[in-house]
């Protein structure tokens, strides 16, 4: 479509494979603000696909459009082969969405919430109850089945909310920030569940603010910011563009800061950032190997370190690398 300067053509998905989502030039504005500003998306069937972006990037807005909850201002899309706008009812028959915030009835019990949805989908009588119980068991919620949802913990709510999306196994499942606010154990549980679903053939489109989450789960990642796609690729491809992360060093003697910065810049071929607190330097390292060699060079030059660490790239650093540091810089295609 007329979307300006997007990340090139869609990936080389074989044309014969029907796509779960095929979107062209989607736009959604709130007032004068373009929350989604011309996004193309091709999500193949049967994969986990991640949309990565910071707060306010437009992830939720994009997902709500694809789940038929809000109408695009411009652009076209087919979801599971049905047109998003003209055939919304057919789309709804094949998707399920777990939104960013729990969409459960707090006054009802966990079981009643599932029962409500099972009946709306058309399960009758005992079949509805059986389906609810089966989901409760699968999500480890049987013990809490007759507790009101308002007494659930965050992790329990999340599990119930996802269970509520699986009353009928959807062809395409939307998960908007499925692990935000969960503790590490609950996060692992949700990841395991997402993988299991994908293994059973459900296409999963999830959003996340965490690079490691996208990395852990997704076959393909789209990075968006300010409503635009700024990169797309596999996790490997993105990392190749970003490097394996940042090397942080702290010097024992602040007087050697300039010497250390010059040396690191020369060895790693990247801009060295000085932390305002003083004797600390950060620099992007292409690989752990390169980082180790740079550290060895510092020591060989007699520069003593009080601390060093290697951090995998944060979302900030990914954006920094992908956009060349400029805010909302032109898109950059990430290719191996």
């Amino acid at each position: 479509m007329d979307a300006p300067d997007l990340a090139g053509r869609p990936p080389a998905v074989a044309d014969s494979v029907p796509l779960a989502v095929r979107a062209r030039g989607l736009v959604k504005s709130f007032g004068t603000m373009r929350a989604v500003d011309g996004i193309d998306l091709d999500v193949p069937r049967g994969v986990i696909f991640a949309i990565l972006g910071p707060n306010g990037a437009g992830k939720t807005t994009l997902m709500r459009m694809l789940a038929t909850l809000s109408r695009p201002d411009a652009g076209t899309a087919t979801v599971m082969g049905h047109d998003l706008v003209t055939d919304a009812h057919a789309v709804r028959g094949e998707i399920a969405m777990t939104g960013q915030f729990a969409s459960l009835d707090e006054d009802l019990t966990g079981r009643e919430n599932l029962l409500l949805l099972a009946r709306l989908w058309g399960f009758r009588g005992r079949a509805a109850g059986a389906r609810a119980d089966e989901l409760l068991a699968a999500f480890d919620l049987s013990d809490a089945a007759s507790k009101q949802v308002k007494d659930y913990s965050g992790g329990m709510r999340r599990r119930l909310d996802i269970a509520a999306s699986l009353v009928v196994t959807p062809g395409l499942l939307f998960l908007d920030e499925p692990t935000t606010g969960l503790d590490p154990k609950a996060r692992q549980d949700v990841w395991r569940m997402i993988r299991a679903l994908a293994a059973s053939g459900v296409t999963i489109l999830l959003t996340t603010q965490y690079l490691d989450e996208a990395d852990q789960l997704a076959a393909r990642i789209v990075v968006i910011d300010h409503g635009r796609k700024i990169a797309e690729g596999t996790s490997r491809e993105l990392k190749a563009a970003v490097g394996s992360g940042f090397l942080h060093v702290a010097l024992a003697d602040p007087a050697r800061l300039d010497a250390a910065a010059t040396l690191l810049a020369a060895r790693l071929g990247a801009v060295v950032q000085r932390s305002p607190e003083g004797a600390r330097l950060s620099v992007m390292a292409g690989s752990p190997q390169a980082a180790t060699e740079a550290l060895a060079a510092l020591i060989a030059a007699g520069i003593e370190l009080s601390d060093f660490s290697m951090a995998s790239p944060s979302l900030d650093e990914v954006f920094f690398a992908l956009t060349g540091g400029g805010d909302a810089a032109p898109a950059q295609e990430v290719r191996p």
Partner: protein
Amino acid sequence: MSDVPMSDVRLSDAPTSDTGTPLLRPVARPRPPSAFSNALVFGWRAVLKFRHVPEQLFDLVMTPIMFTLLFTFVFGGALAGSPGDYLQVFIPGILVQTVVFNAVYSGMGLSTDLGKGLFDRFRSLPIWPLAPFAGLMVGDILRHLIAGGIILGIGLALGYRPEAGVVGVVAAFLLLLVIGFGVGWIFLVLGLLLKTPTAVMTIGFAFLFPINFASNIMVDPATMPDWLQAFVDVNPVSFMTTAMRGLMAGTATVGEVALALAAPVLLTLVLAPVTLVLYRRR
């Protein structure tokens, strides 16, 4: 629904343990239910809410009880000569007032559901789009019947006698339900437009108090200044009250009932489509 597990999926904490680990099998969609069946499910939800949130019944019941007792015994003598005489005119009126005020609840419930994203889930389901509203209506009807029944009970205990008997009371309650249904649309629209349930209640009450008090419910309009009488005479709430009194006393004319029905019918015709458009556009 298919009973054939295509591939077993384990979702529990311990993927290696197979001690009774539940399996999640792919489940196909059953035959799509009818719009009516969807609506019934939402009605069932409304009933469940009464079970789980009995506090809402307290609100619902206390206000009319207080109004009935206070007005009858505090003002009854002054307004109608004796509390007993006042009851005869007041009970049908307070029924109208209660139903009109109770219509606020479904708007508040709608606003709450929208705020929590619950309606997003409903809207992403392949169901009849208006089914959730049908559920709100069922909740409304239950509320009206409960509150109306309590007021009538108190009235009877205090000596109120509907001269038209059971038939009159049934007809009056049917009219009440139509009134509640019609007025309910106002609050559904507010619920869709306003972000918080409290805002729905505040704006709703700001509008309901004047139209209820500036009516013939509590006081004979003949004692009011001319300009206010002019308003009371055309206030739809007055028409509703007159018809209710007529139905319960067995003196109602077709004209009175028609006037009472005018506002609810008009509200439904105008606001039902507005509700649908607002709901779809969100």
